[in-house]
């Protein structure tokens, strides 16, 4: 039976996809008698099935070599695109994480979106995300990874635009879609360019090829940079990080998946194509630099945000910057551990803060305070989530970061400083978040704050339990770093950096101080961080503006120059009156002229390369 499950791993994404399809009849206007709720229950049920299947398959392949399957998707004109699936303990483990987290998020959404009419749309999108994510981790082909990333980009657009009648939501959805699409298209360029050179898209074959490839450095660099662009956008790294911030306009339960798993897809793909990227030392350096800049920058920005969701989104960018560094220096094992720790910890943070936001009807941290007395369970969960992504023993984050720190200690001490600095900044941000919410005095917003529906509390506390057990899981999987093989005192250094961050944050935000801490930072720096390095303005100046101007120019050109000669002299009116008598109207010569001119331009553009070829003697 278990064997049957692992032989048919392609079914795992299908459950969620079936759920997504089955939810559609409950769109408004189709099924009226039941209300939209059955859509949610069906999806929860199918998520359970996906979870059971992936667990069963995982138990079957545990400790064994990977099972691969291959289906031909397209076979034409010498191009064969096969859909390669790989069922190993790693990929199936990832499926288990995805299915269980989506299950928790869907349960959470039953309570969170209790009064919403858009259940069918919400649950089918969640199903789409689960299907896409499972498919992504199972598939072993760069082409299909690209395909899924692109479909998930569309999914992000739709789920961020869930509450589409608010104008901020609409612009948020637009920006999220377009920013991610930029990354996707550059990745597509890389995908298209890679095939003629490497001859395959299969990750395993690519790694084999890259081991012996002898590539021109320029080609290798261009290719590697194109391949990095997709993950940069997905992982919300500088300079394509703005979308995650804008995506916070979407509903909270969707953020559980987006801030954890969806952003991790980029890192997952990056780990898989790392052998190809490693062909170019420049690209590898660029990737590490991007990661380092984002890690420090985004974690600093998160300290300056007053919107709780924005704090979390910049923390996400910052932590994934660390993952980028880990992948860049070749510590992909540590990177996977970090992702695992981060996914669970961040999900817990999102769920915990979400249940506060739901009752207190504000996302503004400055309006909160004094909630510890009223919401101790949620407070505990938020604290556990925050501490677990820090490098603080005995929680999971410590065991994931220590191997990376150890590796950097030997090779690149400057990067180690970046990691420690980021860790400290994350510590400050977590302590600040906790302090502003649960510490301090009660405000008008937090005066009444009962614990939420059990459907909110149960997934949150359950997840908190899992997060606490991460070190135990690591130990069971025998991937805990052996402390005696590491550089001496590295564990202590990492721990101290976390404690330092927590201490700074607590001093300012948890303990009552006379002076508001915010005044300690000069105003320009505060604004610089609070407004995200002025990235929106930068986009406007460098990308949106030029494209807009160019499109207006082309439109003007089209109307007045290319189409123009006639319209310019106002013959248009004459035409519409005289239809067929164009050749008797004297002014229609203008029209002929414009046609002749167009043809001349056409022939010149077409002919120039030809002339060059002819003059070169063919």
């Amino acid at each position: 039976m278990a064997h049957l499950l692992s032989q048919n791993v392609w079914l795992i994404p299908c459950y969620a996809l079936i759920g997504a399809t089955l939810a559609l009849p409950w769109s408004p206007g189709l099924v009226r008698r039941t209300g939209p709720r059955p859509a949610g229950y069906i999806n929860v049920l199918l998520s359970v099935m996906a979870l059971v299947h992936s667990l069963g398959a995982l138990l079957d392949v545990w400790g064994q070599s990977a099972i691969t399957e291959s289906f031909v998707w397209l076979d034409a004109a010498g191009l064969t695109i096969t859909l390669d699936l790989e069922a190993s303990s790693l990929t199936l483990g990832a499926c288990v994480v995805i299915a269980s987290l989506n299950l928790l998020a869907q349960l959470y959404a039953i309570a969170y979106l209790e009064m919403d009419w858009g259940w069918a749309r919400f649950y089918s999108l969640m199903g789409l995300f689960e299907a896409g994510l499972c498919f992504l981790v199972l598939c072993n082909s760069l082409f299909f990874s690209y395909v899924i990333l692109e479909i998930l980009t569309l999914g992000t657009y739709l789920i961020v635009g869930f509450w589409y009648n608010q104008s901020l939501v609409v612009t948020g959805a637009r920006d999220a879609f377009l920013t991610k699409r930029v990354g996707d298209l550059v990745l597509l360029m890389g995908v298209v360019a890679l095939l003629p050179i490497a001859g395959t898209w299969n990750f395993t074959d690519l790694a084999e090829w890259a081991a012996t490839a002898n590539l021109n450095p320029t080609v290798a660099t261009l290719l590697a940079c194109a391949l990095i662009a997709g993950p940069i956008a997905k992982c919300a790294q500088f300079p394509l990080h703005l979308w995650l911030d804008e995506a916070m306009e979407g509903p909270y339960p969707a953020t559980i998946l987006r801030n954890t798993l969806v952003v991790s897809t980029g890192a997952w793909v990056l780990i898989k194509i790392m052998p190809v990227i490693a062909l170019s030392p420049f690209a590898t350096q660029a990737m590490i630099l991007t990661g380092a800049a984002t890690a420090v920058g985004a974690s600093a920005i998160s300290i300056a945000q007053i919107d709780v969701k924005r704090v979390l989104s910049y923390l996400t960018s910052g932590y994934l910057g660390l993952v980028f560094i880990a992948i860049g220096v070749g510590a992909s094992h540590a990177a996977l551990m970090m992702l695992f720790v981060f996914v669970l910890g961040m999900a817990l943070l999102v769920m915990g803060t979400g249940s506060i936001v739901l009752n207190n009807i504000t996302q503004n941290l400055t309006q909160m305070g004094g909630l510890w007395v009223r919401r101790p369970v949620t407070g505990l969960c938020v604290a556990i989530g925050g501490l677990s992504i820090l490098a603080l023993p005995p929680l999971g984050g410590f065991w994931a970061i220590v191997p990376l720190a150890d590796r950097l200690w030997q090779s690149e001490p400057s990067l180690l400083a970046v990691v420690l600095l980021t860790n400290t900044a994350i510590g400050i941000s977590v302590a600040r978040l906790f302090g502003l919410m649960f510490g301090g005095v009660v405000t008008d917003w937090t005066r009444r704050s009962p614990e939420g529906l059990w459907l909110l509390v149960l997934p949150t506390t359950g997840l908190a339990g899992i997060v606490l057990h991460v070190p135990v899981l690591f130990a069971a999987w025998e991937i805990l770093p052996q402390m005696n093989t590491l550089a001496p005192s590295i564990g202590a250094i990492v721990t101290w950096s976390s404690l330092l961050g927590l201490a700074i944050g607590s001093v300012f935000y948890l303990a009552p101080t006379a002076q508001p801490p915010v005044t300690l930072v000069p105003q320009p720096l505060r604004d610089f961080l609070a407004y995200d390095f002025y990235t929106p303005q930068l986009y406007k100046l460098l990308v949106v503006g030029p494209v807009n101007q160019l499109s207006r120019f082309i439109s003007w050109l089209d109307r007045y120059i290319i189409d123009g000669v006639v319209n310019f002299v106002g013959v248009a009116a004459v035409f519409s009156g005289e239809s067929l008598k164009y050749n008797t109207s004297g002014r229609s010569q203008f029209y002929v002229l414009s046609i002749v001119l167009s043809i001349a331009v056409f022939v010149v553009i077409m002919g120039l390369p030809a002339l060059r070829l002819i003059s070169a003697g063919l």
Partner: protein
Amino acid sequence: MLTALILIPLLGAIAIGLIPDPPAAPSRAKPIALITAAIALIESIYLATQYDVNNAGLQFVEAQTWITPIGLNYHLGLDGLSFPLVLLNTLLTVIAIYSTSDRIDRPKLYYALLLITSAGVAGAFLAQNLLLFILCFELELIPVYLLIAIWGGEKRGYAGTKFLLYTALSGILILASFLVVAWIGGDFISFDYADISTAHLDLQTQLIALTLLLVGLGIKIPLVPLHTWSPDAYVESSPPIAILLGGVLAKMGTYGLIRFGLELFPETWTLVAPGLAVIGAISVMYGSLAAIAQRDIKRMVAYSSIGHMGYILVAIAAGTELSVLGGIAQMVAHGLILALLFNLVGLVEEKTGTRDLDALNGLLNPIRGLPLVSTLLITAGMASAGIPGMVGFAAEFLVFQGSFSVFPIQTLICILSSGLTAVYFVILLNRTCFGKLDNSLAYYDRVTLPERLPAIILVAIVVIFGLQPNWLVRWMEPTSARFVAALPANEMAIPAIGQGLSPEFTPPIASLPQPLTAPSLAHRD
């Protein structure tokens, strides 16, 4: 068999003309037209079951001598290039007739003209004789002109005249090119494709003939800067006519590029190909950028069509097996998606009374908006923007992958422009579907199921072929391989994967100091 495809619509048109309408009752024209078009569709589906996929040559050939002295023969045939287009034509004709409003003026004339157009298009795709092609090409001209100029929008006279002028010129240029090829030098037998070749012509004459042909076809496709008739024609004509114009009629241009450009001028083709690829890339970029600046959703779709036709040009110019296949697939994909877009935009206009982006808002609203139409519009826009899972992506990907090895820069520009495609569709969707519906204005008629049906069918086809592109490309593959095999400069095509790279092979991206060393591909078989 093939004659029937031309004859059925013509007979239908005659029937509509002859059968009198009952007094004080709805006209019988629409049912007759619909039945006729449906018979033609069934006939072409029947042909699909009889079609031998593995045969690269002509099938169901019908040859009759007609006017021997001028070389005009009635010679029809189907291959992997024309067959998908013929099917597309019959399908879109049914959809155009079905989606025409029942309240249209002068229904008899309208449906008769529409059927004649469909017959002309079918004839052009089926013809195996240059003169016959021209005949059919011109046959659709006047009906379409009238369809635009009588049932069009505000500026219909202007748009119709412009269409007529440009397209008539296009026909003349193509005819001139054929005459040059046939009459200069060589021994003239007939205008049959099989009898014509340019091998005997010197390079200069070939270039002149090819230029005439390309300008003629370039107007029809349309390519920048010969495109100015098309946005006006698409916008001013009623949605069903726009579906035919953009979905099928424009395909005659790209069809001609492959059929005549590649097949008749294999030698000269490689000379003009780089220039054509540049024009294709410009068209893609130009169409997308111009679309961003539009405030009228139909005009936006019209410019998007110019952009998407540019991909086909780049693909055909590249002339690799994969790219030509992708080009043919893109013709079908573009036809389907554009028809879908025009249908939905037409529905939106009919229900809300406006096409203005600044006036439209919040149509996704489930109670008073047009939720299903909006959902379909989002799907259509995303299909056009090349999101995987829909046929547009499959075709565009083949184009990109096939053209990249020959024209890397142009291909990259095309990929970049597909990002711009996303930009204007997001603008369109954000404005029309998203946002807040103005409750005081939103008293829209309900969209009935019959009105939704064409869009639902088209979406289903678009998604099915997107998930299973093999079902689409297998019809075309042998034929596109045959076209490419005729090209002399086939060394510029990339060798298929698995065959290994020849030692002297240097792709253009590697016009760099060191040649690429081919990795060992031998193990992958």
